[in-house]
């Protein structure tokens, strides 16, 4: 796997995170590269979501480095600045703005927090409108643009949230359990959607428990256990790693 080595998007070295004495992540080093879809698996409490919190600026590391493109130190920035750098995140539970319409959710996302004067005048460029139309089609909600987001089904909300990432065209996409609570049909559609996120200019990181789903989408799998990296490789090699089997898959 991964023969032509593409540039590193996120570089993590010696990362440690502690919550009042509890070590959530200990001395973790890994790299996410452009053009790949990386899955992170591991039992509950392995530090998967904490890792995303650190990359997106929600949690500060106790030690270690987190860099974007090897130049921007993410540990020194807040959530807003990191989001503006082009790191998008989808949360575990669907967090769309339920009081707003589907299209309005995407409009908020495409602005990316810029241009308050344009916001007051509700102005959006023709190109941005086209982009929103495209994304609505990609996420299969082209006929639901005027619906209140709160009335969408669980799966549709998850897709809308992925769409909110897509309109901003981020370099790094972090997805936390995108298929949790989905029907088989919805899971299959989400797998298609995630496959379409793959691009040479983009790194995609997915946290997921559903092994079949991970096998379907991921180029490379990293296994976390108690805040440490237990193994890394293709789905097949990870599945056959005795340590991984012991802590996770075997149970």
């Amino acid at each position, binding site marked *: 796997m991964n023969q032509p080595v593409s540039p590193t998007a996120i570089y993590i070295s010696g990362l440690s995170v502690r919550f009042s004495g509890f070590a959530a992540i200990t001395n973790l080093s890994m790299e996410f590269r452009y053009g790949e879809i990386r899955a992170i698996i591991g039992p509950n409490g392995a530090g998967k979501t904490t890792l995303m919190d650190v990359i*997106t600026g*929600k949690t500060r590391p106790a030690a270690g480095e987190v860099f974007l493109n090897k130049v921007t130190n993410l540990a020194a920035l*807040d*959530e*807003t600045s990191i*989001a*503006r750098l082009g790191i*998008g*995140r989808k*949360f575990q*539970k*669907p*967090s*769309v*703005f*339920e*009081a*707003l319409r589907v299209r*309005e959710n995407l*409009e*908020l*996302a495409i*602005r*990316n*927090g*810029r241009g*308050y004067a*344009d*916001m*007051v*005048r*509700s*102005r*959006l460029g023709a190109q941005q409108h086209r982009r929103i139309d495209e994304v609505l089609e990609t996420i299969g909600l082209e006929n639901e643009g005027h*619906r*209140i*987001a*709160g*009335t*969408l*089904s*669980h799966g549709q*909300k998850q897709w809308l949230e992925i769409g*909110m990432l897509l309109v*901003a065209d981020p370099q790094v996409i972090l997805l936390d359990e995108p298929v949790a609570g989905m029907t088989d049909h919805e899971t299959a559609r989400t797998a298609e959607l995630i496959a379409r996120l793959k691009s040479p200019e983009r790194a995609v990181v997915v946290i997921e428990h559903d092994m079949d789903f991970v096998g379907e989408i991921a180029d490379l799998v990293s296994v976390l256990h108690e805040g440490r990296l237990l193994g890394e490789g293709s789905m097949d090699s990870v599945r056959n790693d005795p340590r991984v089997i012991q802590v996770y898959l075997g149970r």
Partner: protein
Amino acid sequence: MNTFPDPRTSRRFTVSSSATRWLGQTVEIGMVPVLVLVALYLPFAYFVIPESNALHLSLFGINLIGQIMCFALLALALDLVWGYAGILSLGHGIFFGIGGYLMAIYLLNGAYAETHVLPDFLQYMGASDFPAAWKIFSRLDVTILLTMVVTTLVAGVFGFVTFRSRINGVYLSIITQALTYALMLLLFINDVGFGGNNGMTGFTSLAGYKLAGVTTQIGLAVCSCLLLVAAYVGARYLARSSFGRALIAVRDDEARMRFLGYRTHTLKLFAWCLSAVLAALAGMLYVPQVGIVNPTIVSPELSVEIAVWVAIGGRGTLIGAIVGAIVVNGLKFWLTAQLPAVWPFILAGVTLVIVVYFSNGVWGSFKAAGSESKGGRQ
């Protein structure tokens, strides 16, 4: 906040709901001409319609309408931050009070220039001349401008510190409530120099017009109506823009907005300062109509009551705030005259019923019946 779709709120288009929606839209837009008509009606009702006619309004009645319009503006200001940005301020009386006190200083300037008699409280403090700093407020336009600047500064500093420190929800409400109370206690002290618990009174004229004059009083009431209309139109434009939707998004999930690249504290700060200025303008119009300002203007009771008006009318609807303030204050003036002992119980009872059975308030519940969903509000 994020719940699975509720079957009751899933899509349903019935004749009655679309009719409700049409009616809702009509009332929301119709509010503008209605308020303008009220403004035109006030002088007409006093000067033209004979006293024997039921449509005649006494000066007392007109003055009352003017005061209520100021309260409606105050409620509108609170709805902008509470209903849209999710900041429940229990201290909007502070800004109302800043406007009121600065207006009172302007009015005292005018009174001193006419009579050359120092206000009583300044004499008791041993002052021999009108305070030099107060003379800045000797012109109405300067006073209005300075009030807006001072209010923006006070609101800006408070908002910057709290929003940046991510103080939210009930904690913020408690802080604002405590600040109003502290300001009230401060103003009660005679040596602070704002008239102590007697406050400031003895105003004579406003911009050259005798304050006791009929035309001035009616003019103030008309101004209150028109300012309310202007504020409503402006607030509605803002609320329905992308900016308003961004505020709603901050209200429902502020953390999520940060991950979308928004500086949420900047958004909140803008709405907060705008709301504070509106509240101060309401105070500026209120004081010359009641003829006095004293520390009760920043009492916690008033500040809580503003939230009650908005809650009854329906927060996050703008029109609900206006209707809530008008109805509650109208009832208050009427019932405190008829049944003074019962009024607090009526207000408490109505508030309880609204909160328990119509959590979106009167107008919010009406709108929810007409829209496809109540949206993601708790």
